[in-house]
């Protein structure tokens, strides 16, 4: 069961950096995997319904918490963004802002059956993108 209410997180992302923040690694991965190039774009994407079909993965304590006596939980979800199967992890930071810790393409365990699409694409495009 998730620790946070997903819709609360999404709504705050829609507000922007006043209520949410994207940590450095997630900004880098979002640019590489989703072509979302700024923090504003990432938050607006999430806030505007960009996380299609979110599926809860797990909730875990934040591993870098300097104050373990007051655990901060991190929720993680899989989602779809068109052709891309993604992973997002977020927590409520001490600053009372949502912190997106991870935002990347999930390269393992895509449950969607895209075998036919991949096969047909591979007939025409010699170097198709591998799905692991």
């Amino acid at each position, binding site marked *: 069961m998730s620790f946070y209410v997903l819709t609360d997180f999404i709504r705050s992302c829609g507000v922007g950096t006043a209520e949410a923040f994207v940590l450095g690694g997630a900004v880098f991965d979002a640019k590489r995997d989703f072509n979302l190039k700024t923090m504003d774009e990432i938050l607006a994407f999430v806030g505007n319904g960009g996380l299609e079909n979110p599926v809860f993965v797990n909730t875990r304590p934040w591993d*870098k918490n*300097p104050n373990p006596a007051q655990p901060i939980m991190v929720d993680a979800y899989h989602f779809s963004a068109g052709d891309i199967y993604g992973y997002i992890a977020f927590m409520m*930071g*001490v*600053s009372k802002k949502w912190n997106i810790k991870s935002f990347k393409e999930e390269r393992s365990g895509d449950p969607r059956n895209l075998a036919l699409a991949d*096969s047909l694409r591979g*007939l025409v495009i010699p170097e198709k993108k591998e799905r692991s």
Partner: protein
Amino acid sequence: MSVVECPACGSKKLKKLTLTEHAQLTLGDEFSFVRENYVCETCEEQGDFGLANDEIFKAAERNAETMSVEKIIEYLADQKISMARFERAFEIPQRTLNRWKSGDFSSTSLALLRTVATCPWLVNVAEHRFERAFVASEIFQQTVRILEHQTKQNSAGVPGVGFYLWDSVGSKGAVMVANSAQSSVQLVASSNQVFPVAG
């Protein structure tokens, strides 16, 4: 001036770095910019805690986009798509592209230019007012061109797509044969109909 703190743990013990980064513009050139990066000395999380990088990036990207717009319009002219033709086909005011070349363009304008630069035949579609029958015909003709090109590349017998045109009494058509280790697909297409053939 507000004090910068770590959004994760709230610490103000931060180290600030500046880094030069490079980015690749979509259908354009590489560009560079200098961004700020804070590292929290308490929890080791890092990021743009000062919220400065978005503006820095957008300014650098805008400069690159302005040059890209000019290059795309020149490329389209090389493809015999003049600014006047583009404007008439897409029903946008005359001299719009001149405005875009001077830097007065929106992200939507740029998206349209990139789309047409990638598929110049879309101008033909627009000139025919996006009529469905014409679109289908144009897609088929473009597919033929791509697959003919593919056939030439696969002439050494490498598994892939072979495309052959046939012309018999009463009709013209095309056969596409895909050979792979897993399957073989035959698709028979005519100028009027497209239908699969088992095999």
